[in-house]
């Protein structure tokens, strides 16, 4: 009897094989259609597994077979209220990425070289997107530490190709460097995390996460603190937590649109999911000792990234830094080790995926039209030049800065509430730390408002005919390019953007959609698996 979760995992794999083997025989449209269909199959399967779950089991759709006997690695899968939203997010974003790729192949060709057949083809990119999707879903449903690690690594390698081969067409050396740096950073982090996992297995004798969670109260001590530190450091590279964030802006600036969306929307969640699924339930006591530091780094990241955004000159780098800020709220939530904080982490992860995915799709659309993402060359007054694109972008900015009524607000509220509650009696932070963290996070929110308002003013408002002073050689061509590239969203783009806009409003006005499953998962996450 095929478990639902195996369907969830296999569908994108089969899709990747199909698209990869069919190759140029299929048009990008057909390949994209296959990609959308398999992603939706995954989505449907995980929802079926979730809604047909029985109330007594902590994990729905659980599958447990011994895989590598010598290492006691099991093929152990299962979903609960913390993983289902993330699996759904992955499936939806991958479907939208595949839909986005249904555009003409010349949009991915190297325009600077002027030939239409140049560059690697769209079907390979589609296949890689589906492989990343499968690996990411694997991370979210894995309940064995080594299996988690395998999927974690499996998601990395295709991303290198996506960034290095399909990245910024004007800067070949730069995109290779960005991709390699991204790979090295995250692989080093994963290696540290593996050390932690192996140490944990040696200490407790099992790799199964549910079992480890039941053993959690006994996992205290200096060695265990070191293990927790190693795992936290490894995951901190992926999340990313300041100051290990430096790979992210370069990767985003060089990546293609779908690469950025997957990187921001899915990839970063792999890191935060590791905190939520492994670090907190299995190592609660060591994590409680690390909590003030995690919280400190998180809020420094929020403010630092907001300050950096104020001076960014490239649109995609700006959105990348804003991601670091959002992940700061997620890590703040995790560091509080209470219900509000953990709920904040999961909610904010999903909301960030939706909102920043939207922003990156739109940034990609803008970059395609202008050939560059440099703000000085994008001109002003986009409300006139491309009204619906501008309105959607303004909506994305407002959602990202956390306007109540849209998805981004609930995560921030819960994170701040978690920080406050962590400072009360019985919390993991001292009163002073909690109020400091709260204050710094609030300053971060104010700065976020400032830079997004500045961005909207610069890009969307303003006189469309006036261009910013660029070098003398560039001014005339910049204005001409900006004015000429003023086409509004086409149907494919409108559908993708529309889905994400609706999702943002839905999660904003009906947070119950997410808080219901999260609420069910919280006892397991914070109760040590009992």
């Amino acid at each position: 009897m095929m478990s639902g979760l195996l369907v969830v995992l296999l569908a994108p794999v089969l899709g990747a094989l199909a698209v990869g083997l069919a190759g140029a025989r299929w048009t990008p449209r057909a390949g994209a259609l296959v990609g959308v269909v398999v992603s939706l199959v995954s989505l449907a399967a995980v929802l079926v597994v979730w809604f047909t779950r029985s109330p007594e089991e902590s994990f729905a759709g659980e599958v447990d077979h011994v895989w590598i006997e010598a290492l006691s690695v099991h093929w152990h899968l299962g979903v609960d209220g913390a993983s289902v939203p993330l699996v759904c997010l992955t499936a939806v974003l991958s479907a939208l990425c595949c839909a986005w790729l249904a555009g003409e192949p010349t949009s991915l060709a190297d325009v600077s070289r002027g030939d239409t057949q140049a560059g690697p083809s769209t079907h390979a990119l589609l296949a890689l997107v589906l492989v990343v999707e499968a690996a990411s879903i694997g991370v979210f449903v894995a309940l064995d530490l080594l299996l988690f690690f395998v999927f974690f690594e499996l998601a990395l390698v295709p991303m290198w190709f996506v960034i290095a081969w399909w990245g910024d067409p004007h800067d070949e050396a730069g995109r290779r460097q960005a991709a390699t740096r991204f790979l090295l950073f995250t692989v080093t982090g994963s290696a540290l995390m593996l050390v932690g996992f192996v140490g944990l297995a040696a200490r407790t004798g099992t790799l199964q996460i549910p079992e480890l969670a039941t053993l959690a109260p006994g996992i205290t001590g200096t060695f265990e603190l070191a293990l927790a530190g190693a795992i936290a450091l490894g995951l901190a590279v992926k999340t990313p937590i300041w100051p290990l964030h430096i790979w992210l802006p370069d990767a985003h600036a060089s990546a293609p649109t779908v690469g950025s969306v997957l990187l921001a929307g899915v990839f970063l969640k792999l890191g935060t999911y590791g905190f939520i699924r492994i670090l907190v339930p299995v190592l609660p006591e060591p994590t409680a000792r690390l909590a003030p530091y995690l919280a400190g780094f998180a809020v420094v990241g929020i403010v630092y990234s907001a300050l950096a955004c104020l001076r960014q000159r490239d649109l995609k780098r700006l959105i990348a830094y804003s991601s670091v800020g959002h992940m700061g709220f997620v890590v703040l939530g995790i560091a509080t080790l209470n219900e509000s904080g953990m709920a904040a982490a999961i909610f904010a992860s999903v909301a960030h995926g939706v909102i920043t995915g939207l922003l990156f799709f739109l940034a990609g659309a803008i970059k395609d039209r202008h050939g560059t993402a440099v703000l000085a060359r994008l001109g002003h007054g986009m409300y006139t030049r491309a009204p619906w694109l501008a309105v959607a972008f303004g909506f994305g900015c407002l959602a990202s800065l956390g306007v109540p009524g849209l998805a981004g607000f609930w995560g921030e509220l819960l994170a701040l509430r978690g920080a406050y509650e962590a400072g009360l009696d019985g919390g993991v932070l001292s009163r002073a730390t909690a109020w400091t963290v709260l204050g710094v996070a609030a300053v971060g929110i104010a700065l976020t408002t400032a830079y997004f308002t500045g961005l909207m003013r610069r890009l969307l408002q303003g006189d469309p005919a006036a261009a910013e002073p660029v070098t003398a050689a560039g001014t005339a061509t910049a204005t001409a390019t900006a004015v000429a590239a003023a086409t509004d969203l086409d149907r494919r783009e409108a559908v993708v953007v529309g889905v994400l806009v609706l999702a943002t409003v839905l999660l904003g006005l009906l947070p119950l959609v997410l808080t219901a499953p999260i609420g069910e998962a919280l006892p397991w996450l914070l109760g040590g698996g009992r």
Partner: protein
Amino acid sequence: MTELTSVGGMPWALASMIGLPVLVALLVATAREASQAARIAIAGAGATWIVVVVAAAGQLGDDVPQAGAYAGGGEPVLGVSLALSFDALSAAVAVLAATIGLLVQVYSCAYLAGDPRYRSYACIVTVFVAAMNTVLLADDLIVLLVGWEVMGVCSYLLIAHHWELPAARDGAAKAFVMTRFADLGLLVAIIVVGASVGSYRISDLLVAVESGRLSDSTITAVGLLVLLAVVGKSAQFPLHTWLPDAMPGPTPISALIHAATMVAAGVYLVARLLPVIAASTVTAVALGLLAVVTMVLGAAFALAADDVKRVLAWSTVSQLAYMFAALAVSGYVAAIGHLIVHGAFKALLFLAAGCLAHAVGSTAIAAMGGLRRPMPWTFWSTTIGLAALVGLVPTAGFFSKDAVFGAALDATHVQTGAPVWLAWLVLVAGLATAVLTAAYATRLWLLVFFGAARASRQADTVHEAPAAMRVPVAVLVVPTLLLGPAVLAPGWLGAQAEPFHLGIAVLSTVLVVLPGLAVWAAWRPGVDPARRLGRARRVLARELRVDDGYDRAVVRPVGGAARLAVGGDADVVEAYVRGTGWGADRSSWLLGLAQTRNVATYVSLSVVAVVLAGVLLGVLG
């Protein structure tokens, strides 16, 4: 959990006060062309007005049970419930908001005739009305916060309606960033309330305060945080600088948002949470002091401003301070009475300023003069509006201002949350501000309507505004004249009203007539009476350089910190990364030295190593 009594049919009426404008906004956004959008917007505003008035009719008055609706409570994590309540306070302000909203929609279709962005404008105004109603109806603080912030977003989008003007862009950005910063106070206050009371419902909070369950420090903290939010939203000192800079927005928006509704939401929130504010002396004193400073400062700046809308903006700041001062001394009914009356006459004045701008092409005072004869309707409406602002008998402004003075006077010998010296300070400052108000109102009146017409202006191009603009202004004259006694009616707000103080009424009338006469005496046609202030005028015109202070204290340090952050990434963090790469490179070179591929070297090294090992073993063994 307190339960609300439900008046039959009310839950749907309350829900539709929010739902109907949202639906209308969607219809306006998808309308095919501007005239269709205008019809839908006006019809929708009219329908909302009817629902609000019918619902409010049942609530105003004494001894009426509060209506409410409650949904939710099954939400496990956030603790938010969709709780609405509708009492006399909500009803009164809702009627004001709905009326001005309807009049502004009618006015806008003439004011913005031919504007290519009319549809988005009408849509956002309708969303704004929905958000305002959400604030007025919310019994859950988070629902209130949602409405509060959505109002801020709509205000930002509407101020920037003419975004091709740099002043509009700057004003919108400033308003949004300043008010969002202040809103963080409300967010943190809500978190503290949730943790201390166990619920976000305002009704639960007020019960907890009354029963003494909350500690003094919690009550003070919540009060001060709410005060921060309110100071920002209602443009009180020291966050007062955004409101005059928001004037490049379309004039109907200034009338709706920046005179009658959004800035009044701060007053509404303080009134709604008055038990929390009054329970802490620190908060009441802070509120009172800020209000006193603001009312005098706002009136003084209005005296030196050279743009009609800027004068009215400073006037709004000053009049809002009256309401806050009244609340600081627990003059609940007086404050809300003044809120309603001020909403009416300030909207009238702004809409009339729009008529002037329509005729003359600008709102600068220098472009006006002698408009009494070509624009009689506007002249008489503005005169009545200014009379209400000054507080002349028999306008409603006279009665509402007297109520504020009366509340302060009562607080000097009756125990309220605030100390007696604060009540005296409020009274004195209020009378001083009344003097300044009379001065700047008379100045404005004389400079705009009297004197010679500008030589550059052709006499026949100046004409009265079209009917769609004149009629809303005329409609607002009615409450400006007649609302006075209604504000004094006993129990209209479900609470004890202030009695009429004859002594204060006579004193204030004398105090406002004298400056008016003085300004008139100082005026010569074409000469600004404010010139008589000499050097003080220049100081006031620069508005005490508070903005420069913000620039030096906030904007520049943030810019510096931003440069540090980017530099830090480029030079510090990056250096570590490159350093690691360099280190790996160097150590691989070093280790590579051992790979000489020379067998003789390997043999020699092995021999040396074995000998050393043998020696060491011998020594240690």
